[in-house]
């Protein structure tokens, strides 16, 4: 098949499934489920087909033209999008398969699968988008569909709140991105990504370094929102209220990955903007450490995984900001696989024991679920960076890049984050596999095959994917950084140290089962309270918004609606005589309008 039909199949089939399911199959959840799975399989196969064909020139279609402005629509088919497209399609397919079991008894099954399909369509179209505006549209759609999926169980008030928080917070970032795009429109009137990136004629050659820094920084604000970087990260842990497969999808290959992927897409621009790159590097490093410290003390398995995602996203952005496209892509792909695996495992535990607490899962006999526990351990080890699993190779690449460019402070930060990662991951593993008391009764929950199969497939992926690093580099047309042996050894050393401390705290037979951090009380409190960031927001932004809206309400009732006593015009006496609040007094409206007109008229006359 030719490239065009393949790419259309990849992107359109989820959309078609969504439309058909939502319109015709509301009453037939099984049919909807089958259809959506089928669509996802087609999408995956054609994405693989595209990858096999290899990179080709971008395809562009005119969407809209008027005068000088033309909006186009198209597909960029370079190494990064081809590979990541396959990853997205693959993980979506796995999660859909898994959802068949997970959502088996949910009444809103059709809606769920339709939304998943819609989500897949938005994300795939985003990945292949050739035009910046097109990217933005699908970026918004990714946010929109995750809004619905996070709030899928809308009977739970937490779910509704989390969905709203996620949407609002990522929108804060989106405004930044949107303004960045508007700046580009104003400066160069061109949204074609390949030509914007062109080293000879692209954006970086047309605008001054200051402007370029501003644009990239604005774009990065968008990335911060989507990829949950400090200080816009607090929506992500709350987003755990959605169904677990959704969390898996959100945190591995779609929602949060969109931010990183945007940076991958526009990587040359970020490299040209030196200051922005440094800011990104700092924020990413800080986020990586911050999130790991919170993950150290949290007890909810999904929350730990969520913070771990934030931290790993920090790693990816570090790699990109330090200059290595390859390291960023590589870690994005490996992380997608092992993080999806970990979430699916946690989903099986939650499904089986109806608790999110790691200690509870352990006590209920979590390790009896053999395949799941295997997946958890492999995935966890990959996340920690235990050689020779996937995470080891990609993290190694990041360290190498940081070392190569001499970013020593950031390197130290990265090592600290890697150590903490190993620690909290194995804390999780030990809490589940080595409970402090033997499981009381043995009511065995079989792992359904359709849930087990994706776990096993992803486990395999987490093991072998690391060895394809050179293929990925080749796909991107890049050469991997040379690994220095000292760096490798010290990285492994850090990981082993983390695992050992975790073993000491939680794993050995009469372990204290409290983290070492609890010995330093202030830090423990700080971490447990998530660095008080949510609270800071509550007392600042939320309070300001409420105050603002109260002020406006007051103005509406008192100034505009004309309670004379509060009316601050000098010639009017203020008195406490009539304090009743009068509303709806129309003459004051009119008077203000007249004064305004007079002032404008005078302004015109005096010109």
């Amino acid at each position, binding site marked *: 098949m030719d490239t065009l039909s393949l790419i259309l199949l990849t992107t359109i089939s989820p959309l078609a499934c969504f439309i058909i399911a939502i319109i015709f199959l509301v009453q037939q959840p099984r049919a909807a489920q089958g259809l959506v799975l089928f669509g996802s399989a087609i999408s995956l196969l054609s994405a693989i087909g595209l990858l096999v064909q290899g990179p080709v020139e971008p395809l562009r279609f005119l969407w809209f033209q008027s005068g000088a402005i033309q909006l186009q629509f198209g597909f960029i088919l370079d190494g990064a999008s081809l590979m990541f497209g396959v990853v997205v399609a693959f993980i979506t397919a796995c999660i859909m398969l898994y959802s068949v079991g997970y959502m088996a008894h949910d009444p809103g099954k059709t809606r769920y699968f339709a939304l998943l399909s819609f989500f897949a369509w938005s994300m795939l179209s985003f990945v292949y988008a050739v035009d910046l505006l097109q990217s933005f549209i699908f970026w918004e759609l990714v946010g929109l569909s995750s809004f619905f999926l996070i709030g899928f169980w809308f009977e739970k008030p937490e779910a509704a709140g989390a969905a709203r928080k996620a949407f609002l917070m990522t929108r804060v970032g989106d405004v930044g991105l949107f303004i960045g795009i508007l700046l580009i429109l104003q400066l160069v009137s061109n949204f074609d990504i390949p030509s914007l990136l062109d080293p000879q004629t692209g954006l970086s050659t047309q605008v001054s370094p200051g402007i370029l820094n501003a644009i990239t920084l604005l774009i990065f604000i968008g990335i911060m929102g989507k990829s949950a970087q400090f200080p816009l990260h607090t929506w992500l842990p709350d987003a755990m209220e959605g169904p677990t497969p959704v969390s898996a999808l959100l945190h591995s290959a779609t929602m949060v990955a969109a931010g990183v992927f945007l940076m991958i897409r526009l990587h040359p621009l970020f490299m040209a903007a030196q200051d922005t790159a440094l800011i990104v590097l700092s924020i990413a490093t800080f986020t990586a450490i911050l999130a790991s410290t919170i993950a150290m003390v949290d007890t909810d398995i999904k929350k730990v995984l969520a913070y771990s995602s934030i931290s790993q996203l920090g790693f990816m952005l570090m790699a990109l900001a330090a200059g290595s496209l390859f390291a960023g892509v590589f870690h994005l792909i490996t992380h997608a696989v092992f993080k999806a695996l970990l979430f699916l495992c946690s989903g099986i535990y939650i499904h089986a024991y109806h608790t999110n607490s790691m200690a509870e899962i352990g006590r209920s006999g979590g390790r009896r679920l053999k395949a799941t526990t295997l997946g958890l351990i492999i995935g966890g080890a990959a996340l920690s960076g235990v050689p020779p699993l996937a995470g080891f190779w990609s993290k190694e690449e990041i360290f190498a890049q940081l070392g190569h460019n001499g970013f020593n402070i950031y390197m130290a930060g990265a090592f600290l984050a890697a150590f903490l990662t190993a620690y909290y991951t194995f804390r999780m593993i030990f809490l589940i596999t080595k409970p402090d008391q033997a499981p009381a009764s043995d009511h065995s929950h079989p792992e359904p095959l359709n849930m087990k199969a994706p776990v096993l497939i992803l486990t395999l992926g987490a093991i072998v994917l690391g060895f394809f690093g050179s293929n990925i580099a080749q796909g991107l047309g890049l050469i991997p950084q040379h690994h220095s042996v000292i760096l490798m050894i010290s990285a492994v050393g850090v990981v082993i140290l983390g695992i050992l401390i975790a073993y000491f705290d939680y794993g050995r037979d009469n372990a204290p089962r409290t983290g070492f951090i609890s010995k330093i009380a202030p830090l423990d409190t700080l971490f447990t309270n998530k660095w008080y960031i949510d609270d800071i927001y509550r007392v600042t932004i939320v309070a300001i918004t409420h105050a603002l809206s109260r002020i406006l309400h007051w103005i509406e009732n008192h100034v505009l609606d004309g309670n004379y006593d509060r*009316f601050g*015009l000098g*010639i009017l*006496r203020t008195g406490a005589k009539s304090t009743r609040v009068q509303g709806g007094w129309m003459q004051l409206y009119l008077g203000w309008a*007249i*004064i305004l007109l*007079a002032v404008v*008229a005078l302004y015109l*006359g005096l010109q």
Partner: protein
Amino acid sequence: MLEQAVIYTFVALVLIGGGLAAFSRQILYAIIGLGISLLGLAGLFLNLGSPFVAAMQVLIYIGGITVAIVFAMMLSIAMSIRPPNPDARKLGFAIACAVIFFGAVAHLIRGAQFQQIASPASEKAWSVGALGHALLTHYNVVFEALSLVLLLAIIGAILIARKA
């Protein structure tokens, strides 16, 4: 000279009537003020060369509209007998708005140069016949639309004021 005096009398009528309408607390006086002001305007219209419009102003505005307002006042008389409390602040605000607006507009008017025509148009152009002709040629749409508006106003007024 006498002509000048007559014009200034009309101007005085317009302004005094307007002042009465604007400042009076008694509704009846305000309506009388409106009537006086409209009468003065009719005089000015006459002086500006248009007896027909002046006549219409007297007939429809003073004879029709003002009387209708008096009737409405009488139908809701219970409230208009008692003069509402004067509210100095509200009046102050209104005067401030009006003064600012007047200042701005007067400033602009004094600064403006209009292209005034040298001599007024012929007697024929000012005749009622010319007016009628223009109303039925130039402005036939306007004329039809106006009749429609009046029809709707009548239907609407009956409908709104009808007892439930």
